[in-house]
């Protein structure tokens, strides 16, 4: 019995320590608040490189065996930053879901990895004007005769397990359309999604059309069918900045507009198989406001 009460003492002690640790965190945090940096661009120019948050998702971003960063998003961002006087681009790899937390934690200066502009994200980060636009797609095995065209269709067929990129917009769209969270399976990356499809762990894989096309090309031997989602509008990605780096974002937008005007933009997008015309006529405000229909 003595040892028992001793134990209780010990545990409550440890609990107390961890609670006070939590409190310490809390208070330390309140102090670290509220600094502002007026000249982020100058800092970057002085430093000579910009850190870009990326997740490896071809063709939006491509990372080769030597760690070289390419793909539509980083190439475009690199072009813009070069015009802004920052010559070098460093990739900071993370999971897709970890991109925004990484940006907010100061691990990167901007995210350029096909992050769709979307109301919830607009509250967390400062987006540039739309750069890469895409439609949504469903991937299915060809021998599965599923007449799926919309997210609502996913909601009605209760036997479907739906794969969605972890932390992607597809998850929200599906939830908004009434697909229960229990039928959504977070997929860490493209090939994993394909294997999950082949293995029957999921019946549908919902992802941006260009990523889907890339995966279908990669799995040439297998039969997959790719359907463009009808009730999802064209989605546009923007380069995301920390909410207290709006000045940097504005400078970025300024240069981006120039690139769009002089044709550099079209050239980079075409090189990676994106349609440059999709972004025309769309604005950040429009996507940040969101759609009432969904």
């Amino acid at each position, binding site marked *: 019995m003595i040892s028992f009460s001793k134990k209780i003492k010990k545990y409550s002690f440890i*609990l107390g320590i961890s609670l006070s640790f939590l409190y310490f965190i*809390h208070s330390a945090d309140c102090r670290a608040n509220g600094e502002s940096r007026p000249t982020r661009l100058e800092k970057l120019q002085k430093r000579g490189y910009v850190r870009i948050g990326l997740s490896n998702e071809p063709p939006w971003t491509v990372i080769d065996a030597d760690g070289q960063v390419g793909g539509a998003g980083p190439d475009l961002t690199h072009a813009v930053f070069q015009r802004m006087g920052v010559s070098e681009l460093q990739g900071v790899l993370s999971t897709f879901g970890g991109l925004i937390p990484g940006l907010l934690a100061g691990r990167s200066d901007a995210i350029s990895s096909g992050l769709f502009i979307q109301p919830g994200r607009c509250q967390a980060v400062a987006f540039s004007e739309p750069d890469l636009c895409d439609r949504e797609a469903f991937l299915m095995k060809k021998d599965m005769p599923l007449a799926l065209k919309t997210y609502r269709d996913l909601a009605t067929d209760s036997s479907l397990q739906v794969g969605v990129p*972890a932390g992607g917009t597809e998850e929200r769209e599906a939830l908004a359309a009434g697909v229960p969270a229990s039928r959504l399976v*977070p997929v860490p990356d493209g090939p994993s999604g394909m294997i999950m499809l082949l293995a029957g762990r999921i019946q549908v894989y919902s992802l941006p059309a260009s990523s889907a096309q890339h995966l279908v090309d990669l799995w040439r031997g297998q039969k997959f069918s790719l359907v463009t989602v009808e009730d999802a509008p064209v989605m546009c990605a923007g380069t995301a900045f920390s909410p207290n780096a709006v000045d940097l974002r504005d400078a970025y937008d300024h240069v981006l507009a120039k690139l769009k005007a002089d044709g550099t933009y079209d050239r980079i997008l075409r090189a990676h198989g994106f349609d440059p015309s999709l972004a025309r006529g769309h604005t950040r405000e429009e996507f940040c406001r969101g759609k009432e229909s969904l």
Partner: protein
Amino acid sequence: MTWDNHFVVMVFPYLLKGLQVTIIATLCSFAVAVCLGLAIAVLEKITRGPIFFLISGVTHFIRGTPLLVQLFFLYYLLPYANITLPAFGCGILGFGVHYATYLSNVYKSGIEAIPVLQWEVSKACNFSPFQTWRYVILPQAIRSVLPVLGNYFIALIKETPLLSSISVMEMMGEASLFGDMHYRYLEPITMVGVLFLALGMVARGCVGSMTRILGVLREKDDHSASSLKGPYENSKMDPSENLIS
């Protein structure tokens, strides 16, 4: 980014949901590990020659490579062999087999700690090998290693976050999903840490009373425990310290 209690309140229901999965996964995996580990230990004792080397080679391989990669293997590659287990099943299998290789060592040390005399007496009493194992050796061996098994149970709990990498939504999975959706990991992960601390304490309490109920006195210089041989012949070491994160 600042600490926000609002998020703590928000994330809590998700974490509790994940906690259930964590607990169920731990219990199931440990059940697999306990049975399989015993089987491996006995097999390693009764086999000779090539079969012995095969078994011990395989267990070394499993013990020497990361569980994370093994889970990927089970989850992404078994389907190619036309075996598609659900994600949870893959997790249980992966954890169960991995920990079975640890536990087999523990059992073996328990078996080796039994004096040779007992084997001889069993033979003299005309026990069959099965009877010897069943009624003489294993009851003593298992009882003497119970505290160590308990430690592995606690260690197992803390490895369950690996399950989130194969889309089993346990506590860490729920926390990172929540983090992905709300763009903040600070509160969810800290809370997961706190819950693990609490879970570990509860588990330690349970294991402690379990071993006591099962009639094992656990003392620092307990003879049966300190005479155990660890995986690497560490004599005279409290085997409970031979514990792995």
